[in-house]
C-alpha cells in the first residue's frame, strides 16, 4: 500500500459563538490506513468530522483531500468527490425503506451497473440488511440501523470513510461485529477515519491514533503505542496504574 496522504488537516479551528471548540488541530490520514481519533465527551471529535465536511463552519485552517484544497468546498461536493460521513447517532431516514436508504447513498452516481455491484457488496457485508430491504428504516433495531448507516455511507463509493461513534449505544457483541466489518472495509481499499469514545476497541484496529482533549491534539502515535501508553491507559482505558 502506498503511503500517500489522503486527507490532510492543517491547523483547523472552529468557534461556536464564543466557545473555541477546535484550537488548531492537524491530522494526516494515509491511504489504506485506519486512523482513529479518540477523546472524551465534548473533546471536539464530532466537530472535527463536521468541520472537514463543512457541516459546521471552520474559523481557520486548511483541509486537503488527495492534494485538492477542500477547505471551502460545499458538503455535497465533498461527499461526491469521495469522502463519506457516517454521522453520529446513525441518522438513517426512518420513513424510507432500507433499500431506499441504501440508494440515497448512491444518489449522485450515474453508473447503474457499478451501483448494483456495490449494493451486492454491502449486502454481503451486512447480510441482515438483505432480509430487511423492504422494511422501513425506522423499524430496524439499533444495531441494524448502525449497519444501515455504514452501508449507506459505502454506497457513495468513498475513497475515505469517516465514521462517527459507530459503537454508540450498541451491545458489546454488536460492537465487536461492527469493528470486524470496519476491518473488512479497509481490506477493500477504503481508507478509514474512525472517531470513537470506545478507545480500546478503536485503538486495537487502528494503524494510527490521535488523542483529542478539549479541542487540542495532545498525543499521536501508532495504535499499538497508544494502547500501551500509560497516559492513555489511565485516562481512556480505565486501567489503574500502580
Amino acid at each position: 500500500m502506498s503511503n500517500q496522504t489522503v486527507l490532510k488537516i492543517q491547523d483547523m479551528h472552529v468557534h461556536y459563538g464564543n466557545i473555541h471548540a477546535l484550537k488548531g488541530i492537524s491530522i494526516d490520514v494515509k491511504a489504506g490506513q485506519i486512523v482513529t481519533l479518540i477523546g472524551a465527551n465534548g473533546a471536539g471529535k464530532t466537530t472535527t468530522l463536521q468541520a472537514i465536511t463543512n457541516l459546521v463552519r471552520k474559523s481557520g485552517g486548511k483541509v486537503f483531500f488527495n492534494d485538492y484544497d477542500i477547505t471551502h468546498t460545499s458538503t455535497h461536493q465533498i461527499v461526491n468527490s469521495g469522502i463519506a460521513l457516517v454521522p453520529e447517532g446513525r441518522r438513517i431516514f426512518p420513513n424510507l425503506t432500507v433499500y431506499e436508504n441504501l440508494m440515497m447513498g448512491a444518489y449522485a452516481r450515474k453508473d447503474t451497473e457499478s451501483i448494483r455491484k456495490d449494493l451486492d457488496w454491502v449486502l454481503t457485508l451486512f447480510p441482515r440488511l438483505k432480509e430487511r430491504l423492504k422494511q422501513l428504516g425506522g423499524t430496524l433495531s439499533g444495531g441494524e440501523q448502525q449497519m444501515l448507516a455504514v452501508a449507506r455511507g459505502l454506497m457513495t463509493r468513498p475513497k475515505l470513510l469517516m465514521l462517527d461513534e459507530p459503537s454508540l449505544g450498541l451491545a458489546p457483541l454488536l460492537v465487536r461485529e461492527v469493528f470486524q466489518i470496519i476491518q473488512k472495509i479497509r481490506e477493500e481499499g477504503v481508507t478509514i477515519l474512525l472517531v470513537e469514545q470506545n478507545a480500546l476497541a478503536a485503538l486495537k484496529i487502528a494503524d494510527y491514533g490521535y488523542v483529542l482533549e478539549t479541542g487540542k491534539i495532545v498525543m499521536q502515535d501508532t495504535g499499538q503505542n497508544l494502547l500501551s501508553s500509560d497516559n492513555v491507559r489511565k485516562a481512556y482505558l480505565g486501567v489503574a496504574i500502580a
Partner: protein
Amino acid sequence: MEKTLPNNLKFFLTIVLIFLIGILLFLANNKASEYVILILNLMAINIIFSVSLTLINGITGIFSLGHAGFIAIGAYVSTLLTLSVSQKEMTFLIKPLIYPLNQIQLPFLPATLIAGLVAAGFGYIVAAPSLRLIGDYLAIATLGLGETIRIIANNAWSITNGALGLKAIPPYTNIYWSWGWAFVTVLVISSLVKSSYGRALKAIREDPIAAKAMGINVFSHQVVSFVLGSLFAGVGGALWAHLITTIDPKSFAFSKTFEILIMAVLGGLGSISGAIIGASIYTVGLEFLRVLESPFKIGFISFPGIPGMRMVVLSVLLIVLMLFWQRGIMGRKELSWDSVYALVAKRLKKRGGNDE
C-alpha cells in the same frame, strides 16, 4: 411478501380510471346543475392547491405558510392579462392601470401559464433567503411573505386596484380547464416524487444533515420543490379567479393558506393521493354542512339556522379526526393499485374463511 400486480396491468387500470373520471366529468358538465359544476370546479382547484402544498410541506418538509401569496400572484397576473382593455379602464377608477398592462388582452391558456411562471419566479426569489432558515423560523418567514403579498395587493392601486379588487373577470374556468390542470399537476408532482429526485426530497424531509452527507445538494433541491409548488399554486390561483370572477386582497388572507393546510393534513401530510382525498372531502363536506345554516329539524326538535355554524361543526370534526387519526387519512402512504388489490384480496380471504 405482499402481492404485486404486473406493471402493464396497473398502467391499463390507470388509463381506464382516468377515462372513467373523464366520462363522469363530461356527463356532469352536460347534465348536472350549475351548483354541482361549481363544486366540481372548486374541487379540482383545491386538489391543485393541496397537492402543490404537499410537495413543499409534506414531501420536502419545508413548513411553508405562504401558499396564499402565490395563489394571489397567479390570480392577479392572469386576471390582468385576460380582462379586456375597456373593462380595465372601467375598473381602475382611483388610479389608472400602468402601461403596458392596460393595453394587453390574452387568451386564457397563455394567461394561466404566465401566471404560473410569475408565481414560480417569485417563489425562486423568496426561496433563496427564506430557505436559509429552518423549522419554525421558516414557517414564520413564509407566513410573513404571504401577508406581505396581500398587503402589497391592497396598496398597489395602479396594478391591483387596491382594496376594491378586480371584478367582471371573464368566467373562462370550466370543468375541462380545472380538471385538466389538476390532472397535469398530479401527474407532474407524482412522477417527480416517484423519481430518485423525489426520494432525495423525502430524505431531506427526514434528515437534512444526513441528506447532505449523502452528497445531496439540499438547498438546490429545496428551491426546486418550492418553485414547482409555487408554479402550480399560481396556476390554481388563475383558475380560481376565472371561476369566481371577482378577486380582492381579502380573498388571499392567511385563512386561505390555512384552508389548504387543512386539506393536506386531513389527507395525510406527505401523500399525494392523501392530498387529493383531503381536498375532495373538504370541498364536498363544506357544502354538505351548509344544511346547518338554514333552519332544519331532527325528529321533533327544530333548529334555527345560524350563519357560520358549518365552520364550527367542521372545526369540531377536524379536532376529533386529528385525535383519532393523527397522521391524516392516508398518513404518508400512497394509494396504489397494489394496495387496493391487497385490500380486496384480504376481504375475499376473510369471506372465504367464514365459509369454511
